[in-house]
């Protein structure tokens, strides 16, 4: 088989699978389900291969299979497999507590990474960007931006006042600013939705041009 033939077969198979997926527009049918199950099977297969080839085999090579064999290196190499084995116990009700020990390291490292990521990657750059928007020539837009950011944050405030009747209500200023925030959220989600529609339209036109026109010989 030549590379050109292989490429042609791949393109044709892709076009047929695309057509099967688009058949969903007529309703849920067996062609769509077949395409989806092929997709899931292929995705699972590639995930399995990527996991083995990019993570597990290199890890075993530098730890367990390295020469000369050292006990501490061997121990470190087998440690994630021990924790991974503990994760299996999470699915059994009797031994699920053992599985918690498998989660400890993931939760600890995950918490630290999430904290650093949220502070260094989101909070500091975004607060800095909000402050930098206040330029003399851009004062009105900067003010709108500041009002928008603060009001959206206040919209998600759940601090309230308990009335003698037992009903919990928000303070009037908080509720008012929250309403402005809700408006900004509506605008943000609407614009994001519009951008998403445009992206989907771009993908659709490219799919039709690249894959489906092949079937009709264009």
């Amino acid at each position, binding site marked *: 088989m030549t590379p050109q033939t292989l490429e042609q077969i791949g393109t044709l198979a892709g076009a047929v699978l695309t057509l099967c997926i688009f058949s969903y527009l007529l309703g849920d049918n067996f062609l769509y389900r077949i395409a989806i199950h092929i997709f899931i*099977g292929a995705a699972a297969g590639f995930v399995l291969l990527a996991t083995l080839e990019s993570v597990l085999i290199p890890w075993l090579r530098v730890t367990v299979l390295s020469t000369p064999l050292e006990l501490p290196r061997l121990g470190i190499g087998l*440690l994630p497999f021990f924790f991974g084995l503990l994760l299996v116990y999470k699915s059994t009700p009797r031994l699920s507590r053992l599985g918690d020990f498998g989660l400890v390291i993931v939760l600890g490292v995950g918490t630290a990474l999430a904290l650093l990521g949220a502070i260094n990657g989101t909070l500091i750059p975004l607060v800095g960007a909000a402050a930098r928007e206040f330029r003399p020539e851009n004062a009105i837009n900067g003010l*709108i931006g500041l009002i*928008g950011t603060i009001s959206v944050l206040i*919209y998600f405030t759940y601090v309230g006042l308990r009335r003698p009747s037992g009903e919990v209500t928000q303070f009037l200023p908080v509720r008012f600013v929250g309403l402005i925030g809700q408006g900004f959220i509506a605008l943000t989600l609407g614009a994001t939705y*519009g951008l998403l529609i445009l992206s989907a339209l771009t993908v659709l036109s490219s799919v039709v041009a690249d894959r489906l026109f092949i079937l009709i010989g264009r």
Partner: protein
Amino acid sequence: MTTSRTPRRRLRLGAALLAALTIGIALITLLGLEPAAPLPAALNANLSTLSQLLIQLVAVIGAIALLLGVLNLTRVHAAQLRKFPHGIYSLILLITLFGVVLLRALERGGVLRVGTGDAPSVSLTVLDAAQVAVESALAGLLFFALVYSAFRLMRNRVTIWNALFIAALVIVLLGFSPLGGATFLPSVREWLLNVPVNAGTRGLLIGIAIGVVVVGVRVLIGRDRTFRE
């Protein structure tokens, strides 16, 4: 005499140990990635090495968890093989999964080779045909779902928030369309995206980041209930 009705929470040794381990690991990782100036340089260097090792361990544990997930998928679909008609779909899934693995194994073993040098590998062609094609078709299908949902939104109930949502949506769509004569639309779209939408997005992202920080700090001070319940 009054008695408190709030049940006292018992301190379980296992839960306390788990919380202590989590806090210790989180602190080591934090100090390893962001060295504290008051600590000695040698200690900072050791913490940095230890945190790198912990991150590598978590990456390998994640890979093992993925492996377990694929094994579970295989087990579930193998159990469904006898059922009709779901068994056919499960069979197709299993054939594809093992086919991809077998193809790659043959390729790695040098048994399966198409062309020489820069020729695309068979497994990459299968990836392009099965995965990329279906993913892009599903993304294309999303277009119809999104447009229909926007239509349904206004059809069901009209509120001020729905109206704002649709107004922003229409401005963005018309702003990108090449309508003749409507030169102001792209500038309105630009302003909308750069000022109010940017502000709203920033507010949402800062809110999410504050939420992450709060949850992270709760874990660090042992107030998270994950291991206590």
